[in-house]
């Protein structure tokens, strides 16, 4: 089965090609069905692979063809199937399939539906390349590929200038990160002469190449810059909230469940490297934590339902990086998985809401939707509980594990993490209460149209809701079960480092603290949003609503100066400067010609005079200069 791994990306590719080539002529439904079925097929294959890997536990290399072969540089197009990639395959195809199903309904009204599915399939294909690649370059291909798809999907409604701006921003920010990734890759190539995971990690472990820690750090940091872009970490996170311009399922798939976790995947994949790079790890830890907190604060004051979720995603990604930073790789992957479930759920739920609201996304104009949309409400609530880390839901297990690992690393991290988690609970439930409870605040027309979404939307919601609950049980905390199913599954590839065996009591206490603050915040959220009043925000709240003014800051510090410099260069350096010099030489020749011409006065006496002067000069030269 693992040898058939190429089928996994192949199906979406076929789907993409069919939809992409015939997008103008194909009926919408057919496009949706083809798109969905191909992902289903991939999912089935992925399942097979997953279980085979689970049984064998070994990594398999599937060599497809030579991609780049130049002298010492040999980069084959190879897939590596092991526990990590197979798990991600499952998440991607699984969640992806559900979102495809959801989309068949959600996008049905849109004229570009076939195109949409083509993009979606292409995205799945790229994402699969990313996780399947047997070396960094293949990963990079997928890495940029998902960036492209993200760009295309964010700008899906291309007539809207803001949307296309958002798409552009996403792409460019990703590219900044990609440059870091590229430099990282080149550093690896430079140092080790290979990009293949096996060779690279083998050499890292074997220590054939003696390098200093700073080299490790540099490689790790460069790769991490790539992850910053893709996984929306400070300072490259601002694209993600803007990316909500795309259709909601896209947000669910790309900007919550899969693409943004690519950074986590990559670092988890490179755990062998990061273990050797303490400085990079510290950096990751703090950046992750900062992201988690900053994004959470912003999320608390957003009114756009998708923006809240977007910042929540950023914040959760911050958690994952916190985990990576403290060496808890499997924990991070664990959180990726649970987060994929509940965040997809939340986004799809939000999509359902938006669908019902006729495109309205402002929380201030919602309220009381639960009455009309029971399934959506319940599944959404499950999602909220999961993300808030309420025991029994998947988020609890993964997040708690992160916090525990952080505590083990440094208690400060733990407290700050709990602070972020606390805010998570608050903003999620603020969202929930604002949208689903209370009275409807929208227009009468909208109220009239409120309805539960069709089955194609609700079924994925239900499935994801179930997963959001049970998903956590693959990684029970140590105090409950010694057998961490996920950790043991991933063990051949990646394992947590620095396992500090905590006392059971301590662990219980940590859980207790985090759960209780979350519950407390839910209550606070309920109280504050029971009868919401939307006065304009002031002070800190306004600061938060305006996202710390980071966009404005970037605009002032980076975007505008670059524009200004470009304009200056264009006008002065280019036209007046360099071209001016070139043209000036031409003009000088012309001017000189005009002057020298005047010597030709027409007076033969003057001509003879010049001749005599010439004779004198040449005589002087010939006699007194040479001799």
């Amino acid at each position: 089965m693992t040898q058939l791994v190429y089928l996994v990306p192949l199906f979406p590719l076929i789907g993409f090609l069919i939809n992409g080539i015939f997008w103008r002529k194909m009926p919408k439904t057919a496009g949706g069905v083809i798109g969905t079925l191909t992902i289903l097929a991939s999912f089935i294959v992925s399942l097979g692979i997953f279980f085979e890997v689970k049984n064998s536990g070994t990594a398999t290399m599937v060599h497809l063809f030579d991609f780049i072969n130049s002298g010492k540089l040999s980069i084959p197009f190879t897939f590596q199937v092991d526990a990590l990639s197979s798990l991600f395959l499952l998440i991607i195809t699984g969640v992806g399939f559900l979102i495809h199903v959801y989309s068949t309904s959600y996008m049905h009204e849109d004229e570009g539906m076939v195109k949409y599915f083509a993009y979606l399939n292409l995205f799945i294909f790229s994402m699969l390349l990313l996780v399947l690649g047997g070396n960094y370059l293949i990963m990079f291909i997928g890495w940029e590929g998902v960036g492209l798809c993200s760009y295309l999907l964010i700008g899906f409604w291309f007539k809207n200038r803001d949307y296309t701006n958002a798409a552009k921003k996403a792409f460019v920010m990703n590219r900044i990160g990609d440059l870091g990734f590229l430099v990282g890759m080149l550093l690896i190539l430079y140092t080790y002469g290979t990009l293949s995971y096996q060779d690279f990690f083998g050499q890292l472990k074997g220590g054939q190449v003696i390098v200093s820690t700073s080299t490790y750090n540099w490689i790790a940091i460069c790769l991490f810059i790539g992850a910053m872009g893709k996984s929306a970490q400070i300072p490259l996170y601002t694209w993600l909230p803007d990316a909500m311009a795309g259709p909601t399922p896209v947000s669910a798939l790309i900007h919550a469940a899969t693409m943004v976790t690519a950074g986590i995947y990559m670092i988890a994949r490179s755990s062998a490297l990061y273990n050797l790079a303490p400085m990079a790890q510290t950096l990751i830890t703090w950046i992750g934590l900062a992201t988690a907190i900053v994004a959470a604060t912003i999320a608390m004051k957003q009114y756009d339902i998708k923006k809240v979720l977007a910042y929540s995603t950023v914040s959760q990604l911050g958690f994952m990086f916190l985990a990576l930073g403290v060496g808890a790789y499997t924990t991070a992957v664990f959180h990726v998985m649970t987060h994929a479930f509940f965040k997809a759920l939340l986004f799809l739920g939000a999509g359902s809401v938006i669908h019902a609201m006729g495109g309205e996304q402002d929380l201030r104009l919602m309220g009381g939707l639960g009455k009309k949309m029971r399934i959506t409400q319940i599944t959404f609530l499950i999602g909220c509980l999961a993300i808030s880390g309420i025991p029994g839901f998947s988020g609890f297990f993964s997040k708690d594990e992160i916090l525990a690992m952080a505590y083990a690393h440094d208690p400060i991290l733990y407290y700050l993490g709990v602070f972020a988690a606390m805010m998570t609970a608050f903003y999620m439930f603020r969202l929930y209460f604002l949208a689903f409870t209370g009275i409807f605040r929208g227009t009468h027309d909208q109220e009239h149209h409120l309805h539960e979404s069709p089955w194609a939307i609700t079924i994925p919601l239900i499935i994801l809701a179930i997963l959001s609950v049970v998903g956590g049980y693959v990684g029970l905390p140590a105090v409950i079960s010694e057998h961490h199913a996920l950790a043991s599954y991933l063990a051949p590839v990646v394992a947590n480092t620095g396992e500090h065996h905590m006392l059971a009591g301590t662990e219980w206490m940590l859980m207790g603290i985090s759960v209780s603050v979350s519950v407390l915040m839910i209550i606070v959220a309920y109280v504050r949003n029971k009868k919401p009043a939307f006065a304009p925000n002031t002070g800190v709240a306004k600061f938060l609503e305006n996202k710390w003014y980071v966009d404005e800051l970037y605009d002032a510090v980076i975007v505008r100066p670059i524009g200004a410099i470009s304009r200056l260069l264009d006008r002065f350096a280019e036209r007046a400067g360099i071209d001016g010099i070139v043209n000036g030489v031409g003009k000088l020749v012309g001017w000189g010609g005009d002057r020298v011409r005047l010597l030709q006065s027409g007076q033969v006496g003057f001509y003879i005079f010049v001749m005599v002067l010439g004779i004198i000069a040449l005589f002087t030269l010939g006699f007194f200069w040479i001799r």
Partner: protein
Amino acid sequence: MKAIIAATISGVILMFAGILVKEKKNAVTLAVILLLALLGVNIYEVVSTPAAAPQAFFNNMLRIDRYAVWFNTLLTGCTLLYVLLIGKEIAKVGSHVAEYFALICFILCGLYILSGYNNMLMLFLGIEIISIPQYILAGSDKKNLKSSEASLKYFLMGAFSTGILLMGITLLYGATGSFYITNFTFLQADSLNVLALAGIILVMIALSFKVSAAPFHMWTPDVYDGAPTAFTAFMATVAKAAAFIAFLRLFQVAFGSLSNSWTLVLSVITAATLFVGNITAVFQQSVKRMLAYSSIAQAGFMLFAVISVNAIAWQGIIIYAVAYSVATIGIFAVLLKLKDYTYDGFNGLAQKEPTLAFVATIFLLSLAGIPLTGGFMAKYYVLSAAMQQGHLMWLVIFALLMAAISVYYYFRVIIAMYFKPGNPELNSPVTQTDKFLLILTCAIVLLIGIFPQLFLSV
């Protein structure tokens, strides 16, 4: 030697024909026939001259080798081409058509002397033989004041330069006691007599005047501009080539071993020539005057052959003289078809007379030195000769920059012809014969550019 006699006889025949032949057309025909005969004699000389050593004539007054007769042959060919292309226009200059051709034959005679002289007296006579007819030709359009002015200017300055030349020759004689250039080779480079050095410099200056090198070039634009266009074409080409071969011969054969003492002086002359010629040509409004300046610029390139004392220089001057002459004669032939000699006069020629525009383009490309035209090979040879000297790289680079400037004024004509609208007035209709001859000329230009060795086969 036979060529000198033949040229003289041709001249005399034409001179008398001036009295006998009344029809202008017949004079042209006679001139063509005589030039063909002259060409035949030259070719016979090429065949009969042994390749190895030069033949001495009349107590070593002349030493004619295969190279010299080949040079003569090619330039006689150019003259023939010139008469074929421009003969009709020569006939329009004035009433003494046959006499003009006689003068042309005498100039050829001077050329033959200058390519083979071995005595300074012969040099002096040769220079005078090519100069005096030129004074006359320049002033031959008596209806035109400019022509007379050109003639007088040329004459005064020419006579002045003759004085300089003679003083140079005298000083050289004072240093060596001989007029034979082969005897000058006994001059020692390390202990060079000041008289000899002064003589060399003065002769160099006089010859620079004849080849219109700066700062002794100032007659050139005025004379070439003022002279009847039909004769400018000849003066700027074959007559100038004759002065060049004299220059080259003297400085290679006689002073080659002394090159250290005069290279710098000549380099300065060369640089100045290139600079003045090119930069002044840029701002001209009249194509004819531009061509006059361009001939100065081209002379700058030909001086490279004189500076470089090596075998390539000999080849360079031959190829340069021929390529430059053919292209210049061609462009003058086109110019003569037009009423208006300004750049604007060329506007839209490509639409009206595509053949004329096309051949003019090829000629101009050749003058600019674009590959596959003769001009490129010519520049190539002289530059590579100079580079073989080793220490003249700066001059070569300077020359190349100037060559780039030359593109400016040559291409202005092309731009006018092809890219500007207009309806140029023609002097006379372009006949099939004209077209054929022009295309033939064009083919020669390309042939020189592609297979230069055909012109160097001796």
